[in-house]
C-alpha cells in the first residue's frame, strides 16, 4: 500500500515495533518509550530556535536594505536638483533593485513566521500527548498483566508515535525551507558586499562594472518613469540642459532649489 496513509504509518509502525521489541518487560518498554518522547520534544525546541534565528537574520537584512532605499531616493532627488540625470538614474536603478530584494525578503519573513507559529502549536500538542502517555503508562504498569499491558502500550505508543512522526515531518519541511532561505540570505550579503545597494556617493568614478551590471539588471522603463516623476515634482523637467555643477559654473537656475 504505497498510498498516502501507507507510507507514513509504515515508518511510524516500524519505529514503534522496534521500540517495543527492545525490552521484555512492558514497564521497561514504557519508560523507554517515554524517554524517547521527551528527547523528541527537545529536538523540536531546537528546530524552532533555528527558524527564529533564520527569521532574525532576514529581518536585519530587510531593515538594512530599507535604509538604503530611503537614502538612494534622497540622493536621486539631490542629483536631479543639480541636473545630474546620470547620477539620478544610477541611484534609481539601485533603488529598484533594492526594492525588489525587499519584497522577496518580506515574503520570506512572513513564511518563516507562519512556520514558527505552526511548530510552536504542534510542540504544545505533542507535549500534552506525552504527558498523557506518562499518565497512562503508570496506570498500565499498576493495573494490567504483562500480556495485556503489551497491547495497551502498543495502542498508546502508536498514537504518540504518529504525532511525533508528523511533527518530525513538519520540522523537516521547515528545515528545508530555512536552508534555502539561508542560502539566499548569503547571496544577498554578497550583493551587499559588492556594493550593489550602496549609495552612489560611495562610488569611485561611477563608471565601474557595477553600474554596467545594474543597467542590465534593472528594467529601464521603471527607472525612466520614476525619473520623470521626480523631475516633475522638482520642477526641473522642462528645463534645457545647463552645464553640470562640478564644472564650476554654479549658476543657480530660476525656479529650482
Amino acid at each position, binding site marked *: *500500500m*504505497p*498510498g*498516502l*496513509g*501507507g*507510507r*507514513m*504509518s509504515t515508518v511510524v509502525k516500524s519505529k514503534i515495533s522496534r521500540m517495543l521489541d527492545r525490552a521484555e518487560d512492558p514497564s521497561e518498554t514504557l519508560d523507554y518509550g517515554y524517554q524517547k518522547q521527551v528527547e523528541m520534544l527537545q529536538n523540536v525546541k531546537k528546530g524552532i530556535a533555528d527558524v527564529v534565528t533564520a527569521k532574525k537574520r532576514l529581518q536585519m537584512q530587510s531593515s538594512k536594505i530599507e535604509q538604503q532605499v530611503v537614502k538612494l531616493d534622497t540622493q536621486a532627488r539631490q542629483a536631479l536638483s543639480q541636473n545630474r540625470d546620470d547620477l539620478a538614474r544610477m541611484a534609481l536603478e539601485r533603488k529598484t533593485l533594492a526594492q525588489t530584494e525587499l519584497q522577496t525578503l518580506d515574503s520570506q519573513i512572513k513564511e518563516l513566521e507562519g512556520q514558527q507559529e*505552526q511548530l510552536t502549536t*504542534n510542540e504544545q*500538542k505533542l507535549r*500534552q*500527548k506525552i504527558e*498523557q*502517555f506518562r499518565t*497512562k503508562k503508570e496506570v498500565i504498569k499498576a493495573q494490567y498483566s504483562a500480556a495485556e499491558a503489551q497491547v495497551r502500550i502498543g*495502542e*498508546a505508543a*502508536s*498514537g*504518540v508515535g*504518529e504525532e511525533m512522526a*508528523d511533527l518530525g*515531518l*513538519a520540522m523537516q*519541511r521547515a528545515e528545508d525551507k530555512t536552508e534555502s532561505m539561508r542560502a539566499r540570505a548569503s547571496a544577498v550579503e554578497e550583493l551587499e558586499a559588492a556594493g550593489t545597494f550602496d549609495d552612489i556617493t560611495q562610488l569611485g568614478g561611477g563608471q565601474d562594472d557595477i553600474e554596467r551590471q545594474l543597467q542590465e539588471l534593472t528594467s529601464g522603463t521603471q527607472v525612466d518613469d520614476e525619473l520623470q516623476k521626480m523631475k516633475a515634482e522638482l520642477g526641473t523637467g522642462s528645463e534645457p540642459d545647463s552645464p553640470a555643477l562640478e564644472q564650476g559654473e554654479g549658476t543657480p537656475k530660476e525656479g529650482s532649489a
Partner: protein
Amino acid sequence: MIVRVSGEGQFRLPDEDSDRINELDNRAVAAVEQGDETGFRELWSQMLEIVANDGNALDDDELVESDVILPPRDISFEEAQGEFTGEGLIPD
C-alpha cells in the same frame, strides 16, 4: 474514522466520508500523473473541505492512530508528485 491533516492534528469523521475522500484521492492521483496542477489543487481543496465541514478535532489527550494521513495543507505540486501515487489513501 480518524483523519490526520499533517501539521494540523487529528479529526474524527463519519465513516461515510471514507468513500468520498477515497474517490477524490483517486482523482487527485490521476491529476498528478497527468501533471495537471490546477486539477490537483481543486481536488485537494475539496478533500480539506470535507475535513473542515465534517471533522471534529480530537482532544489532545486522546492517543489513537489515524486511519488516513493527509499531507500538509500547503503541499507543493512537487511534493504531491511524491505523495499522491499508487493505490491512494485507503488501501483495500
